[in-house]
């Protein structure tokens, strides 16, 4: 019988992080990139909670809560940006929006 330990949580969160990162890097659609960001935030949340549990340190859960709140806010703002980008560029394809270069 394998006891679930910290390592497992971390592996899960790494996978989640990697998936998020992969999503951010590869997706063309800005919405999908945003979803990648959400995945990464959640990976971080898992870490906070896991470390909090295994180190008897309750603050981890507190931070996770904060992150959730922030993520919600972030999603709202990001979606608003995306909406505006769409308005300006008529696309949400991040490859085409390279004005940052200039």
């Amino acid at each position: 019988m394998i006891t679930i330990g910290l390592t497992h949580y971390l592996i899960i969160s790494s996978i989640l992080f990697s998936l998020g990162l992969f999503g951010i890097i590869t997706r063309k659609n800005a919405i999908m990139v945003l979803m990648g960001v959400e995945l990464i935030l959640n990976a971080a949340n898992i870490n906070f909670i896991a470390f909090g549990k295994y180190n008897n340190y309750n603050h981890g859960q507190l931070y996770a809560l904060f992150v959730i709140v922030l993520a919600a806010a972030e999603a709202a703002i990001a979606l608003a940006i995306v909406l505006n980008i769409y308005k300006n560029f008529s696309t949400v394809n991040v490859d085409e929006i390279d004005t940052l270069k200039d």
Partner: protein
Amino acid sequence: MTDIQLVQLAIAILFLPLLGFTAVIFAGMKIKKAYLIEVSIIILAFLASVFLMVQKLVYFPDVNIVKEFTWVNLGNTPLLGPIQWDLGIIVDNLSVIMIFVVTLISMLVHLFSIVYMHGDKRYNRYFAYLGIFTFSMTGIVFTHNMLMMYIFWELVGLSSYLLIGFWFEKKSASDASKKAFIVNRIGDIGMFSGILILFATYKTFTFETIFNEIAKGHLPFGSELWLTITGLLIFAGAIGKSAQFPLHVWLPDAMEGPTPVSALIHAATMVAAGVYLVVRIFALLSADALMIIATIGAISAFIPATIALTQNDIKKVLAYSTVSQLGYMIMALGVGAFHFAFFHLITHAFFKACLFLGSGSVIHAMHHEQDIRNMGGLKKKLPVTYATFLMSTLAISGVPLTSGFLSKDGILAGTWAFAGLTGNYLFAAVGFLVAAMTAFYMFRLVILAFHGEPRNKEKYDHAHESPWLMAMPLVLLAGLSVFFWYTPNPIDGGKGWFVSKWINEPTLVAPNKYEFFKEKEVSQISEANVVEHSAKSNANHEVMFSETYTEAMHHAHYPAMILSLIVAGIGIFFSFFIYQWKKADPEKIANKIKPLYNLSYNKWYFDEIYDATFVKGTLLLSSALAWIDAKIIDGIVDGSADVTRAISRFSGKFDSVVVDGLVNFMAYLSGFIGLIFRRFQTGKVQTYVVLVVFSLVIILFLLK
């Protein structure tokens, strides 16, 4: 009259013509008759001169009245001691006689000109110029001072310039006036240098002081040689003004001026100034200087006489005759015949003025025809002119009973005596030769112009005798060519009052003297009549004309007189032989001696030689220097600018290529680097994220 008053009178005579000049110049612009001011002033001056002469010769025959004025005074100076420029007036026998001659001829010329110049568009100005000339000449006559002599010397040059170039519309006239002034200036430089030497040595310009210093043995630079040089340098002024060889070339050209001017300035008075100068400085001339002076006089007597033989312009003949006669006087001074030189100066002034005015009368009658080949037979038409012209010709040829005979005879006797005393026969030979030539060419002139048949009928028919205003001066001057004004003895001028009473003997102070001038004791002149700054000599030992020379002249007198009569007779005879009786064809004779004839006809090529050497040389030098100045000296300046600009171009290049290049290179380099790194800047968030992650991994890996 007291002596002071005489000096005041002299000053009045001096300044009257200047007043006339100023008045006529200013009034002449508005008033047509302004010339009358000048004419009346000159008559006044003449009357004053007569009065002055009589007063002086009667009441003060043996006193030289001198009055000096300080013109510039620098006071006592640290290095040179007192520096003071004085102007001095001397009223002595020479100056009063000379002033009489000057004002008389000037007055006659004024009167003559009233008719002669009538209708000229610058009529008034002509008289103004005559006024300033008379002023300047009077200054020369009265001066007792080297500086004042130089001042008036130059002013005379100016008035001569103005009058020769009076008809300046003619190029020849303006050329002649320029030539006269410049040639005179050559002599003046010599004179000025002489004055410099005198001032450096004696710190004064006054003749008397200088003579006294020399008598005391104080010589320029302490050497007799320098005294000789000084004398000759001052004489150079006389060479210029009296048109002596080698500066005689200006005088014939000066005939471009109006004929009365030629009579006044270029025959009678101004050109005599050179002789007058030598008379004034006679005391300081050493034997060597006198020898050179005599030689120059002899050359100047001879060459122009040969030229006069062949000239066809009536005024040119007279001009060369003038040079020749002036040479005579200079030669006479050189051999020591002081009295007769001055005597000849006076007699020559009268008869030469008469000749020139006579020629003016002829030219006037012939409507400005000057070539004697177009004249002939004029004696019927112009009886008065002819008579007076003939009288003067007789005088200049040295025919007895004329004044010219007396003075010329004296000069010839002087050269003869000189020959006897020194063994130098050259001057005597030249004297007689020139006398013969003078007689010849003067009679040639008279015969060609007045005798025979008219050669130009048309002009002859229009000729008419001049009005009395022109004739009167001629008669007066011709009258003055008769002997009895000067001496009661028609064959010996030396015994007359003019030579023996009126001309004071100069003292001779130069240490190097002709041997026949001996020292003798001179009694002091009474001081009672002498004005302050007296001209009275302080020296007890004075060298006077010795008995020896006077004696020799006395002995030479009769042989010289006979010989001179013979040579004059020969000259006159040949003249009649060829031109009056036509026994020989002048053309044939000319052809036989073609080279000599050409030499004479072309005035010995002096003008050509001077033109080719000095004039061309100076102009060439000046254009060469101007070229050097513009191309080389200024070229260096401009070149330095060019060099500076070349350097600046180079440094500009250096700056833009190297220095700025380095800066630009840095910019390029950073640009290049930026080029590489900008690749990373895609503007795509995802690329950045990849980079961030990738870098993070590397950092983590490194930090491990």
